[in-house]
């Protein structure tokens, strides 16, 4: 397996979306190819850092304001005022 082949399968590998045979071939490649091991490991860390980052949390006061606006428009629509 070449490094380019490994990269093509990287997303499927990280998502666990591959069959056992392909997985074994990829892990065989990882065992001796340090560059692909580093790329694989740091890509996994990239995903985990973003997933855990809590970027763009909705502040509670804004959340309440938005929900109040949405629900009052829903009531207006229901009552035929909009």
């Amino acid at each position, binding site marked *: 397996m070449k490094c380019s082949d490994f990269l093509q399968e990287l997303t*499927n590998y990280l998502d666990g979306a591959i069959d056992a045979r392909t997985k074994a071939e990829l892990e065989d490649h990882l065992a001796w190819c340090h560059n692909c*091991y580093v790329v694989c490991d*740091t890509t996994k860390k*990239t995903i985990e850092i*973003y997933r855990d980052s809590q970027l763009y949390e909705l502040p509670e006061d804004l959340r309440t304001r*938005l929900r109040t606006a949405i629900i009052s428009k*829903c009531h207006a629509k229901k009552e035929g005022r909009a």
Partner: protein
Amino acid sequence: MSTIQPKVGEPVSDELALVQAAKGGDVSAFEELVRRYDRNVFRIAQHITQNREDAEDVVQDAFLKAYNNLSQFQGQSKFYTWLVRIAVNEALMKLRRRRPERTVSLDEEVKTEEDSVPREVADWSPNPEQQYSQAELRDILTRTIQGLPASFRTVFVLRDVEGLSTEETADALDLSIPAVKSRLLRARLQLRERLSRYFHRRDGASEQPKLEVGDGNQ
């Protein structure tokens, strides 16, 4: 090496009942759906529009559009996937309005200057995020993801931040599954490459790239 574990979402067993009640005119049932998903919609909208005011508008517009079109929701997909589809479309419209000089489409294959083939293969520090303060880390992550083309950014956010499956992401974005996988791979590799600049293993702490911490209002 272990695989990525998806975020476990809230149980959705009662979701169809809420949708049915809302369809029948029960606004409080719809309010429960808003409570359940408003944070997700806001996060997705802000990732796509990169603008706080636009993201606020998208939250309101997407939920109102969903409410007004509840009768069209047939229940083939999850309510959340259907809602995300509406929100993504609203967010892309905002983005197009703000940047009329650049066509923004999820359909086109994006050619970027930066090839996805890794060039920076230096290993990272064991706990790279601990090298920076919370504010610095947030700034690094924000500006790094903002540098991606909208179509890559959107797929990455839905799959890896919000935890939608490949099929749900394809459904929400009206893309084929191979297109979602191709964009996700390139998004992940480009983010990794760009983050390596900040997180690679180094001997001395003095070499850290200089950061200009923004006001966080992006």
